């Protein structure tokens, strides 16, 4: 399965890549929402996108909306990973088409369980 990690922090991308690869996902990375859209428009299907919220050029919510509006990779599951924690923000992300939400900081186990809930890990 293919995963796209979208975060403006190289360190966090590396950390997430390590965790996802341990679970068996093949990962690609993008540094912001715009880069992610470019990648999604021109690549083989992704099964999963881990999407940060606050990023330069294009943030996670705008990226998510663009992905869902354009119908890019329709079965792709999207999980927002962010320090944002307000219920109203989580509701908005779900309305825009997010499948799940993980708050930073998180443990590897929390990520693994969320992936299981999305059918992406055993």
């Amino acid at each position: 399965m293919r995963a796209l990690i979208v975060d403006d922090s190289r360190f966090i991308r590396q950390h997430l890549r390590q965790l996802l690869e341990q679970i068996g996902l093949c990962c690609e990375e993008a540094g912001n929402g715009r880069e992610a859209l470019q990648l999604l428009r021109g690549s083989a299907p992704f099964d999963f996108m881990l999407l940060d919220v606050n990023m330069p050029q294009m943030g996670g919510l705008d990226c998510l909306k663009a992905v869902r509006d354009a119908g890019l990779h329709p079965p792709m599951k999207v999980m927002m990973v962010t320090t944002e924690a307000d219920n109203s923000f989580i509701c908005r992300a779900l309305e825009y088409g997010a499948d799940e939400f993980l708050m930073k900081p998180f443990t590897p186990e929390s990520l693994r369980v969320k992936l299981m809930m999305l059918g992406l890990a055993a």
Partner: protein
Amino acid sequence: MTINETAFFRDHKMFEVLRDTILPRLIEANSSQRELRIWSAASSTGQETYSLAMLLCEHFADLADWDVKIVGTDTSPQVIEYARRGRYRRLEVNRGLAARMLVKYLAHDGEEWEVAPKLRSMCDFQYANLCAPLPKLPIFDLVLLRNVLLYFPQESRSSVFRSVHRQMAPGGYLVLGTSEQAEDSTNLFQAEFVRECYFYRPAQT
């Protein structure tokens, strides 16, 4: 010694089987008295108990006018108090709780999330030592005794099984942790395998 390791919807598969198979059976069996009693027998900080309440509210709207009670018991007064407060921190709500359930059933308040009053009214937390005579408890239709037996010696486990058996309705179900078995009490329970999960029913005596 107590281990307060717990999470919302810990072992999702088991909760799916409860939702799809076990609870519908119990609800049908209890439809005349319209009562349901569930016991989270090592409830720790309460996530399992509240997960059960969420499961019922989310998938069994018909229970709205039933008499439903979910009892969580533990040996630690501190964790019982924690469970009663129904307030959880970020790392706790991150563990196993779907975002849709979080926003529907817990209110964000500062650095914590508080379980909705509707769920809290269904749950009751009290002290019980499974290795000692139990306090007055109802007879339960469903008992969750998960990931606790492995900390007990064989002799205590047998005693716990006898106590739990006495608290169960004849048609009830017992759920153990995924790596636990009731093999030393096979005279008390009959195992039933449902979709990769073991459930134990009181044997007919």
